[in-house]
């Protein structure tokens, strides 16, 4: 079966600086894949390359077998790829509900409606008229996830959804991530918390200085190998 996502030999640059070196990953339909790695390893750059925010300078990205590298982010949303960006990036002048509705801009049909998001995150319904950035960090993360879901994606890219949140909130967020996965949505998530990445994913890639240093299913990877791949020792 054609993988949902196949990233082949991509390089990415910021000006003169090369951030990714010949990265290749494959994601099957319905899989949850975690990208782990230290700060500056290139995890977010990889997500930006896939989502069209920062196109790769070399290499191929196939989505359901079709090349997408170089397509703009808004065009990819229509095709079913959406990103939950690092730092949540809630629109400050929009209310909670308006933030969510922006996610529905591309009008892709599917199971996710505003009501379905409110069932998932009842607190958002309660505070739907509040300003988006007046909410707590965890609630803003719920908005960011709900907003992305309203585009009814086939592939959802989650960049550091646990960053800066209390452990109990992180658990709540990952409960939801599991629900989304159970509905058949393919997920690629970036995690700095290695144990969290190993626990949630079907397959893990570890990045080190813009290269893949290790990959495998979580139970096939031993601690020492991961630690070496993560820190580069």
């Amino acid at each position, binding site marked *: 079966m054609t993988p949902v996502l196949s990233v082949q030999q991509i390089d990415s640059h910021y000006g003169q600086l090369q951030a990714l070196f010949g990265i290749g990953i494959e994601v099957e339909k319905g899989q949850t894949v975690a990208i782990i790695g230290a700060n500056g390893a290139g995890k977010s750059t990889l997500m930006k390359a896939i989502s069209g925010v920062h196109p790769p300078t070399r290499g191929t990205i196939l989505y359901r077998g079709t090349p997408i590298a170089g397509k*703009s982010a*808004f065009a990819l949303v229509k095709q079913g790829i959406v990103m939950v960006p690092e730092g949540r*990036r809630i629109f*400050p002048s929009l209310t909670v509900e308006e933030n969510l509705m*922006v996610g529905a801009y591309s009008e892709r049909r599917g199971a996710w409606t505003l009501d379905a998001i409110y069932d998932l995150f009842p607190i958002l319904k309660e505070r739907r008229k509040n300003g988006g950035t007046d909410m707590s960090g965890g609630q803003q993360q719920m908005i960011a996830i709900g907003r*992305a879901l309203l585009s009814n994606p086939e592939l959802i890219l989650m960049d550091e959804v646990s960053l800066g949140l209390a452990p109990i909130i992180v658990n709540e967020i990952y409960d939801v991530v599991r629900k989304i996965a159970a509905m058949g949505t393919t997920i690629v998530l970036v995690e700095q918390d290695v144990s969290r990445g190993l626990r949630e994913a079907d397959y893990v890639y570890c990045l080190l200085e813009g290269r893949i240093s290790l990959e495998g299913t979580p139970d096939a990877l031993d601690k020492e190998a991961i630690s070496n791949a993560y820190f580069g020792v």
Partner: protein
Amino acid sequence: MAFGLEGILNILIQGVLLGGLYVLYGTGLSLIFGVMRLVNLAHGDFIVLAAYLALLLVGFGVNPLVSIVAVAPLMFVIGLPLQRFILNRTLGKGIMPPLLITFGISIIIQNALQLQFSADTQGLDAGALETASLTLSDGLSIGLMPLLTFVIAIGVLVALQVFFNRTKLGRAFRATSDDPETAEMMGINSRQIYAIAMGISLAIVAIAGILLGVRTTFAPTAGPARLLIAFETVIIGGLGSIWGTLAGGIILGLAQTIGAQINPTYFQLAGHLITLLVLVFRPTGLFAVTRDR
């Protein structure tokens, strides 16, 4: 100088109604800056261009007010490719490229208008409407044209408010204004939003230009003075605030009208002074909502 109550009331009413025209000048400028942080130095020249387009129709016997229905959509259509093929290329490259390009467009419009229509001043004849007035009492009457201008300005603001808050496209405008990169991640084509914004801005400019032409005379080089008024309206009201623009226009209109009562040559000066005061004491304007990004 001694004014009776009616005299004072008269000055205030004239000032507020004059503000209506300034609101129309400022709204398009504020909209463009709010959505894409672009300062359109050709804004005033587009106002004058619209007046000349209306002049062409008036030549066929069309009432200038009726010509709005043709000129506003035409200006909207001019705005789309202007943004898409020229101004979008200047965005994201710092503050200078859009300023230089719109300054260039300003010069091009002025010279093209001179070439086509000569440097003579022109006016748009709206017939009896121009001198018609509502008499409130013996010493107090309101010109129908200024009143109509003010009502149209309020109508434009209300329409914009509804558009921004109640429609999907309006929401996309606000999201793009906040954070264009994230808006694109949510499926919004920001460049398309910018093009539509320029179209809307120029459609409002068309209304402003025609009402200007009915109120007073204009010449190909009249644009920069209108731009200054538009700037002052927006500076006083605060960038990105629809109702701030209304307040800005009214305050500016009042300042000029009151200034002119003290000495007719203070008309412009009083407006500039008020703007200066706002810049000194509240540089973001009285009702700013557009956020830095």
